């Protein structure tokens, strides 16, 4: 009986597992559905008890408010996200190459420091950055926030690059060397092009983390001219306690990068989560 179960994988015998799987997924994703539902709920129905489980008389008012009020925040988040990606890859890819292929003395210590750096709570970093930026006059500046956000991703990125580049065959690098390529040339023309998957994984996570960052944004650019979308939502919650369709519509829009990444690049995400099991 049991061995049969293990070997027999015909769809007809596992449909009930699919059913349970669907049910579990539905339960897990209910909050996401609820966010969508509330984002379409008209103002007058917001306090209805019990609430409508489906926005039958849905409205796009919330999304209209997003278009009217949140576009600058979204643009800022986009700039900050792209800046963080560029900075992270530029710092981490060479470091990963060195740690994976050049066997630097003291590389182990650096690896250890990178691991330890990930353990430091974000608010502690934020407080330190606040003190430094205050004296440098970098508070409420976009480059300042990009640098702070990159600290979320750089240690993780070095780990990913190191793990990935270790897999590049040594013969290939030796061949490049024989052809007269120096380390810089080897890195730029051989290692980096071969590490495309690692670059994609790192970029995805760096973008996602800086897009989602609330701690650094809240401490370093709060009240400034350029605030990211996380602060846009936070101000909404603070100011308009009643207009939950606008808040949830903004939340839906702010979730779009995560959705796009999940659809287009799911295998990179799973690879990133498990590679070294690092996560912030």
């Amino acid at each position, binding site marked *: 009986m049991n061995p049969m179960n293990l070997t027999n994988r015909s769809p007809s015998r596992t449909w009930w597992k699919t059913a349970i799987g669907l049910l579990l997924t539905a339960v897990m994703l209910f909050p996401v559905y609820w966010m969508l539902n509330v984002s379409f709920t008209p103002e007058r129905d917001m306090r209805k008890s019990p609430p409508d489980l489906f926005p039958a008389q849905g409205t796009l008012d919330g999304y209209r408010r997003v278009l009217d009020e949140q576009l600058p925040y979204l643009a800022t988040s986009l700039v900050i996200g792209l800046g963080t990606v560029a900075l992270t890859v530029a710092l*981490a890819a060479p470091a990963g190459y060195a740690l994976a292929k050049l066997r630097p003395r003291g590389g182990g210590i650096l690896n250890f420091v990178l691991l330890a750096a990930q353990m430091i709570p974000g608010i502690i970093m934020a407080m330190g950055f606040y003190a430094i930026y205050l004296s440098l006059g970098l508070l409420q500046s976009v480059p300042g926030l990009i640098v702070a956000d990159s600290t979320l991703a750089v240690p993780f990125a070095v780990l990913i690059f190191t793990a990935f580049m270790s897999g590049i065959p040594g013969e290939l690098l030796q061949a490049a060397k024989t052809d007269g390529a120096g*380390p810089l040339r080897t890195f730029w023309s051989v290692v980096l092009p071969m590490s495309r998957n690692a670059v994609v994984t790192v970029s995805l996570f760096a973008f996602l983390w800086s897009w989602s960052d609330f701690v650094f944004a809240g401490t370093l650019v709060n009240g400034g001219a350029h605030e990211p979308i996380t602060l846009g939502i936070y101000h909404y919650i603070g100011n308009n306690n009643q207009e939950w369709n606008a808040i949830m519509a903004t939340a839906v829009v*702010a979730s779009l990068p995560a959705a796009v990444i999940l659809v287009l690049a799911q295998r990179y995400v799973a690879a990133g989560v498990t590679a070294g099991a690092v996560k912030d």
Partner: protein
Amino acid sequence: MSHTTQVPHRRPVPEPSGAAATAPPPARRRPTSQQWAAWAFLAPVTLYLALFYAYPLYRNIDLSLRDYTVRSFVQGDAPFTGLENYRTVLDDPTFVPALLHTVVFTAVCLVFQYAIGLALAVFFNQHFRLSATLRALFLVPWLLPLIVSASTWSWMLNSDSGVVNALLSAVGVGPVNWLTSPSWSLTSVIIANIWIGVPFNLVVLYSGLQSIPASLYEAAALDGANAWQRFWRVTFPLLRPVSAITLLLGLVYTLKVFDIIWIMTKGGPADSSTTFATWSYQLGFGNLLPAFGPGAAVGNLLVVAALVFGLIYVRVQRKQALS
């Protein structure tokens, strides 16, 4: 800085190494030049770590050892007071509740995230239609910005108009003041944080399950072990290394959870969901009169706790890598 000046040094290297590829003797010379190259590639990230990790950490320690006011914060002439801020924090009536909440929050979140994550991983490790798609969908809570999850949960747990209370009243349970009652606020943030943490546990434990050879299960099944026995005798023991890593990382990351709690309850009402992370922020930024010194002191206690568990994590990981 230093990495740009080192680039020329590496230029002459390729010439002799053209011969190095064929004959072994020059290989002995390679390490020094390779060391230069290696550290040239590492220079940016090293400088970065010093500037943006070490220095903020140092500033934070400095903050915690001085008596800062808003004025002296700007002027930078705060008097050195030694461990005075730490004494203030320890004597504060918030200290004991904050410590207790941090421990409860971390422990409860870890247990549930791990248990649910493991159950789901075992379930999805079976072969059925849509298994991979549904497993991917489980990643959604983990990918969403924390402010999105936190504000969604806030509205779902709203006392009057929240869907959770509506569902409860449908089964005859009276309304619960999830976020506004001191006896429920900690539970509420724990629920939200478990929801966010399950996907991480699921993905890591699932990858651990994948590495257990199917032949072991088949052998156990042939020996007459039922599903329950197969889990406890085969899966669970073989998953122990992955479990240890998952739990330790979860511990470090749960200790520093801030966003969820701050957005949902701001640590309230009446400090009933205050943890070290929110308390530190509250002291430093949450009041009209910021107490940077004590805020930094609380933060440093948190850093010490996180680093202790972090070191244990590194040890465990290294041991596993060796074995």
